């Protein structure tokens, strides 16, 4: 490998640049160049692995994902099942549980019903995570494609997409969701059919994802459109055109890699935002319904009793806060790792 730049020899630039130009932008690497022979993404992942914050954040996110996947197993390990009620553990005087944390009920039981709260928490992770990640994936992909198309193709395509974005932005999100959820739910219900609670939750689950995606892509699309407008005038894009690189390759190989930063930041904000949105909508009654557990609804139910029985409230609240924080930090560190300009 190349120990110092002085041995390059064939580069008359180096001597001159050392004399005349600022030294810092020279590839002066007195240390051995460890990057040789590895792809840029390998280098980036190596950097993520060396970042302690990223590793801890990843561990936290992974932990919650594992809880969601193995909810059945964990609850079985506790020796409980989700929909078993324990009225014997409820005080008949004030409907609060008579127990706290016990070996049988790790997070205690639900006030009034006596449901095991660990089971509620473990199964509640599922809708939160699935809605968060699915909606973030779809809205990011749609946002990227719309933003690239509007920014690079310009003209009519740009006008149409910008018009759609402006229209969606002008709609009040929360009111629209509260109004749309029952309307869409009705569309999927046969006339005269009475939905069971599970069916309602099942429909609302997909309706929520759909609505979050429908309103979620516009922010990223606008961001990407603006970036593309400036990138397409850069000389490296012109150079690619002169070489004859097809438009699709210019978009995805030349321009898109330069947008990794905003995309990762946006996606890593989107996942926690959708998890909170699901929680908020379930809290407001437009989300999932009993008996399907969800962190948001648990928080909603727990608010009346948290002074007397805080065990009801804390598990979902701490989980949502931790997950949101970990995802944001992880996104930040992945973005840094992929940026060659922050590399030393």
């Amino acid at each position, binding site marked *: *490998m*190349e120990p110092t730049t002085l041995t*390059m020899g*064939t*580069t*008359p*630039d*180096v001597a*001159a*640049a050392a*004399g*005349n*130009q600022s030294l810092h*932008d*020279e*590839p002066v690497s007195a240390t051995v160049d460890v*990057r*040789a*022979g*590895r792809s*840029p993404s390998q280098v980036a992942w190596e950097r993520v692995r060396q970042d302690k914050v990223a590793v801890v954040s990843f561990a936290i996110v992974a932990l919650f994902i594992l809880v969601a996947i193995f909810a059945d197993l964990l609850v079985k390990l506790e020796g409980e099942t989700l929909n078993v009620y324990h009225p014997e553990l409820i005080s008949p005087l004030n409907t609060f549980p008579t127990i706290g944390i016990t070996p049988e009920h790790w997070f205690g039981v639900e006030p009034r019903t006596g449901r095991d709260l660990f089971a509620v928490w473990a199964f509640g992770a599922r809708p939160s995570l699935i809605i968060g990640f699915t909606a973030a994936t779809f809205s990011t992909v749609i946002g990227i494609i719309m933003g690239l198309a509007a920014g690079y193709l310009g003209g009519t395509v740009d006008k149409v997409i910008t018009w759609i974005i402006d229209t969606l932005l002008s709609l009040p999100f929360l009111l629209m969701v509260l109004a749309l959820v029952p309307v869409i739910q009705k569309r999927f219900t046969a006339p005269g059919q009475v939905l069971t609670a599970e069916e309602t939750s099942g429909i609302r689950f997909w309706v929520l994802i759909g609505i979050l995606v429908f309103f979620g892509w516009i922010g990223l699309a606008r961001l990407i459109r603006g970036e593309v407008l400036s990138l397409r005038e*850069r*000389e*490296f894009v*012109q*150079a*690619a*055109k*002169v*070489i*004859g*690189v*097809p438009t699709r*390759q210019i978009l995805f*190989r*030349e321009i898109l*890699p*330069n947008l*990794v930063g905003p995309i990762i930041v946006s996606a890593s904000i989107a996942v926690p935002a959708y998890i909170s949105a699901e929680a908020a909508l379930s809290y407001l009654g437009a989300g999932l319904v009993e008996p399907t557990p969800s962190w948001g609804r648990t928080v909603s139910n727990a608010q009346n009793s948290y002074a007397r029985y805080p065990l009801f409230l804390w598990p979902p609240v701490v989980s949502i806060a931790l997950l949101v924080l970990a995802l944001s930090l992880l996104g930040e560190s992945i973005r840094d790792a992929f940026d*060659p*300009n922050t*590399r030393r």
Partner: protein
Amino acid sequence: MTTSPSATQPGAGARAGEPLIEIEHLVKYFAVREVQGLTMVRNTVKAVDDITFSIADGETLGLVGESGCGKSTVSRCITRLETPTSGAIRYRGRDIANLPEKQLRPLRREIQMIFQDPYSSLNPRQTVGAILSTPLRVHGLAKGKEKARAQELLELVGLNPEHINRYPSEFSGGQRQRIGIARALAVEPKVIIADEPVSALDVSVQAQVMNLLSGLRAELGLSFIFIAHDLGVIRHFCDRVAVMYLGKIVEIGDKPHIYGAPQHPYTQALLSAAPDINVVRGAPPKERIRLVGDPPSPIDPPSGCRFRTRCWKAQDICASQEPPLEDKPGGGDDHRIACHFPEIKSTLVAAVPG
């Protein structure tokens, strides 16, 4: 290797063959919208207005003129980054002015471009290896051996082939420009259009990049259209020189004629504006022509001769009749001037830097 200290015979004896590129009556207008008072006004910027020239195989044409005179637009039309408003661009006899992108693609191999700003012309997210193998991949060259070819190209432009996994941000301006040159050479082009390739570099590095270009030209038999506003660089590098003013060519001819016996007042003014190192050394300053004011707007160019508003020789005929670009008495072969009152001035000499 390719850095011979001076290329005294650039593209020697290349004038004989049939023209490689012919530009005929090239016109490029841009539509602009401006707010004037309360109304929106549609205007056209006449960036390039009817220019004609040609270059032969192996020849180097210099294109000079002040900022905004349309030289870059000419280069962008030839590389078809812009589609000309009218006129013909013939490459080996084939008109490419309106060719759709699909049919243009094989021809893109032949005409390549070197850009002005080495900090913007390389994708910051791609390694040098990826940058150099993109043209190979697009044109199906060196299949399976892209990396070896990319390293060969790095060596050709005087960079260390070991640095193939580095990013552009790890190189200096001069080294980046070398990478840009290597990218242009990757597809083995016949013509390279260099749009002010050294004006963003500092002077010592300019000389090295210029020497690299002249070495490559001799080695690979390239033709160049070389755009610059530095007359010294053009003199060092070109066989022929075309001087542009406000979208028109005002004088075109062989280098010795343009530098030794310029006839158009604008050419004379440009030459006289170049700083003379001998004055610093104590020689008495020569006669100096000073142009006053800015060039007129290309949205509404002056009638007749476009230079008349700043010309010290302007008379009534200049406002009413546009002077054609034609041979004038006293000019050399193929030396054409667009002026009603041409006059040879030979004492205005631009110094060669470096």
